[in-house]
């Protein structure tokens, strides 16, 4: 299986969600109200980048005042720093085409949503995510910090314009991939050890784990659901568990499947109910079990309370795991993936331009415990 399929990457870059954007009724000052506007939202793009296309359509009807643009889907304010494709995959259990969104130019809910000051906010959110990914992969973000202003500008512009070739040309200099089958980061023809920046001595031995940037979004839907269209819409972000945590791969593990990668992020899901985990984990400052370490390679142990509705996932947002819950579906870049697919292929071909792999997980849960904190 080839390392990196240009066809697949192109598929991701060209992916777009047809959006039908409605102006919120409270901001309509003219009769008849303006019709919604149809725009294509690039999967790897961000909603605020569409504002220059959307605003002219509505500007004649807006009430006076300064703009603070935000979007909502069925009342849920949308997080502008999450790529459009991920929002769509996560919030539309059954894909809705076109995807009906509401745009607001006033009344930004600053208590729940970080404000966006236009393209600059999005650009810097992107650069900071790229830095984080570089740090995860290499152990430092020097390659990003050392980018020239011109390169940074070009990289960002290539994303805004959806120009894959320009992006690949500039980003290849960053030495962030692709990931080999042995889970070592490759750069061109030479093998780059994880956490080895160019010019630095090789600190890594073969046992050093490889870290891969992943952002996981977990949503609970009813186990008995036959039709995804009937899934209860998300009305609050607390219903989604967000896990921003790298996948660690030890070289000895060999070829990793998507399922194995998921196990490292959501270990409880793969534990048998009857299995009592050996790791002791304490939340009260008691003695920590011998197996744990200070790194994030620790596995969270202990189904201490198997009857509990909520199994705390220490150090992360609470993942709402219920008895007998299991993964119903995994969606990445709009594709429902088979769990046996090689993880390295998924990472290389389906990651976003900031080098994070965004994974939407739909958990099937029993319907009488569907309320979530």
């Amino acid at each position, binding site marked *: 299986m080839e390392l990196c399929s240009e066809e697949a990457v192109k598929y991701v870059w060209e992916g777009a969600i047809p959006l039908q954007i409605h102006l919120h009724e409270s901001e309509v000052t003219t009769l008849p109200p303006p019709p919604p506007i149809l725009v294509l939202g690039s999967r790897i793009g961000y909603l605020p980048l569409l504002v220059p296309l959307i605003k002219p359509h509505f500007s004649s009807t807006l009430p006076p005042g300064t703009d603070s643009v935000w979007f909502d889907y069925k009342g849920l304010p949308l*997080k502008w720093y999450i790529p459009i494709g991920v929002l769509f995959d996560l919030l539309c259990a059954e894909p809705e085409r076109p995807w009906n969104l509401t745009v607001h130019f006033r009344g930004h809910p*600053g208590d729940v949503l970080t404000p966006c000051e236009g393209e600059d906010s999005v650009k*810097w959110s992107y650069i900071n995510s790229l*830095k984080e990914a570089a740090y*995860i992969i290499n152990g430092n973000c020097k390659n990003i910090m050392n980018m020239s202003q011109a390169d940074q500008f070009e990289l960002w512009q290539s994303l805004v314009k959806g120009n894959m070739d320009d992006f690949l040309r500039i980003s290849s200099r960053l030495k962030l991939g692709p990931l080999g089958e042995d889970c070592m980061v490759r750069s061109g023809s030479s093998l780059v050890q994880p956490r080895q920046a160019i010019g630095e001595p090789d600190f890594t031995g073969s046992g050093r784990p490889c870290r891969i940037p992943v952002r996981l979004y977990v949503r609970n839907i009813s186990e008995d659901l036959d039709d995804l269209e009937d899934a209860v819409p998300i009305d609050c972000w607390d219903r989604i568990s967000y896990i921003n945590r790298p996948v660690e791969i030890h070289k000895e593990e060999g070829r990793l499947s998507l399922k194995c990668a998921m196990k490292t992020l959501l270990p409880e899901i793969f534990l048998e109910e009857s299995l009592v985990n050996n790791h002791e984990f304490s939340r009260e400052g008691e003695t920590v079990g011998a197996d744990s370490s*200070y790194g994030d390679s620790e596995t969270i142990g202990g189904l201490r309370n198997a009857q509990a509705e909520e199994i705390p996932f220490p150090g*992360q947002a609470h993942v709402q795991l219920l008895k007998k819950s299991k993964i119903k579906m995994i969606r990445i870049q709009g594709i429902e993936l088979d769990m046996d697919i090689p993880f390295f292929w998924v990472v290389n071909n389906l990651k976003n331009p900031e080098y994070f792999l965004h994974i939407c997980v739909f958990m099937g849960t029993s319907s009488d415990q569907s309320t979530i904190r």
Partner: protein
Amino acid sequence: MLHLMQMILPRNGRRSTQIFPSGHGFLVREWVFHAEGYLALENMNQLSASEALTDDENYSAEEEPFDNATLVQSYNDDMHIYDFHIVYSFSYRVPVLYFRGYRCDGHPLLLCDIERDLPPYSLKIQNESKWTFMTQEEHPYLRRPWYTLHPCGTSDWMKLLLGGDLPSKSPDMLHYLSAWLSVVGQTVGLRIPLELHDKSI
């Protein structure tokens, strides 16, 4: 790192209250460990710039027991209140500071208000690197917009501070957090009482 956070706090999850007056900066209250995995230091009263006394490095007078009457006297509309949370970043494998401020009436502080409370050196950095030093991000657990100091350099300067590679289980790790806080705290004007460094749990 997460275990470290649990280890520096006693079993009941609360640290003893420590209050000390200071010329400017923060009056320390108490630390609380939240089970999801973060440390909170809340309701810290930051006297606004207009209230601050002249910079005074002499703290000997301030080790006396704190007089509540003094606290009432200095309470006024200018007082800003801050919450600080220390959250572990799995990506950077270091602690990260999240904070937010509000006025006495509960109104959240805007970035420009917070900037006025920052020590001068931090303000300079903030002005130079608006998007990469101190930004508004979603709090990993509370899921609301909080301010945060970017952690990408933390690992490097912690290595300098603690000298050499960090041993994973040596007693020095117990001081990791107070060492970290002694640097990061200065960035936001948070004074750490000396007792925090002396106490060995």
